């Protein structure tokens, strides 16, 4: 059964990466956001670390919306959604495959956003907080991708799927984003005592989102009548 999961990941990655434009669109949107925010600066000015971290995560979130729309549109536009829901494996594996693919693609996108933030917004995580930055990005991404996977499946077939996904995703992810932004900001301006509280909050939300979305995915993806 795990082979099916790997096959779906391989299929999605092949289609999205080889088609090129899909992932590129998402990365370009994120880059444009970072670039546009840099217009608010006068020459020689820098944004606060918290603002810089917020812009990084907003770009990641918009990128995520495009990525998950495309991940589910692959089957939807070709009329293969039912074929996928009839796979001889539990729907959980389909959710896992989509979440893992989305996570991988988002991490690739953030590899571009991170240097872009350093260049355009003027703040970089200090070298001794590299591991904390990495842990923060991974933990926050895990939560947002799991929820993105569920809501991406939900929004498919709707004419206004991008806006629907944004309206649902943004408020639900606020606590997790708050933790992600706070930790990211501290990695740039210096660690504070409450960093462990933020990590606890992010991990707690990861657990809640992973457990609930993996369970409810089958209701959303298979219940079409």
């Amino acid at each position: 059964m795990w082979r099916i999961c790997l096959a779906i990941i391989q299929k999605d990655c092949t289609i999205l990466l080889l088609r090129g434009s899909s992932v590129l669109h998402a990365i370009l949107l994120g880059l444009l956001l970072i670039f546009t925010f840099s217009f608010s600066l006068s020459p020689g000015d820098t944004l606060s670390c918290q603002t810089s971290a917020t812009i990084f995560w907003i770009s990641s979130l918009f990128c995520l919306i495009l990525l998950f729309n495309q991940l589910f549109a692959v089957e939807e536009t070709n009329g293969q959604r039912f074929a996928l829901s009839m796979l001889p494996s539990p729907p959980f594996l389909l959710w896992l495959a989509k979440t893992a693919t989305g996570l991988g693609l988002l991490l690739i996108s953030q590899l571009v956003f991170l240097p872009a933030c350093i260049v355009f917004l003027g703040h970089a995580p200090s070298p001794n907080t590299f591991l904390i930055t990495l842990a923060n990005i991974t933990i926050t991404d895990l939560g947002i991708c799991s929820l993105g996977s569920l809501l991406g499946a939900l929004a498919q077939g709707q004419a206004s799927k991008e806006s629907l996904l944004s309206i649902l995703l943004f408020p639900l992810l606020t606590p997790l984003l708050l933790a992600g932004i706070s930790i990211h900001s501290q990695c740039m301006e210096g660690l504070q005592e409450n960093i462990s509280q933020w990590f606890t909050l992010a991990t707690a939300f990861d657990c809640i989102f992973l457990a609930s979305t993996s369970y409810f995915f089958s209701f959303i993806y298979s219940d079409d009548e």
Partner: protein
Amino acid sequence: MYLPFLAIGLIGIISAQCLIFLYAPIESTLGISQKIFYIHLPLAWWGLLAFFLLFATSILYLWKRDLRFHFISLAAGELGELLAVLTVATGSIWGKIAWGVWWTWDPRLTTALVLCFIYGGWLILRTMEWPLVKRATILSVTGIIAFLDVPLVFISARIWRSIHPAVFTSNGIGMTHEMILTVLFSIASFGLFFIGLLLLRIKTLEKELFIESIINRI
């Protein structure tokens, strides 16, 4: 069935105003502006209860696949959103008098507003073109996930050092006997009115489905 609840609730809410302005003493620090608390607290509590009802009936719908649970969750979601918006609005009016600003970066205020947005998004889902059963399933799933954010409203004030006043603390209730009586009466009156509105909305939703089924048959 809803009429007695609405009538008694309405009489209760009017009577509560008399208690608020004639019986309950004026709070020494906050003055007359504290009176809004007697409306703000019932709105907040019944709003959260409505969201819990939405959560519970969503689980029941997914378990039993009975559309009656879906109608209860729809009615509870609409009322919960209305009460949450009114809670934020009354809190904002009080904040302008007490803190001098309509809005401030306070975790409990922000998370309460986030809840309004979450359930606002949930209400938008209702307008999507899905078959009834699929829509009910999707709304139930999102209703359950949305409720996972509700406990954050409670704990946020403790974690993030809120400036929002905490009336019920581990040291006891920071109110006089008259104030407690007034707030309890207000909560009960709003509760009866809430139940009346909920029953009325469930009935209209059932009628709506009935009319739709007749139109579809024609």
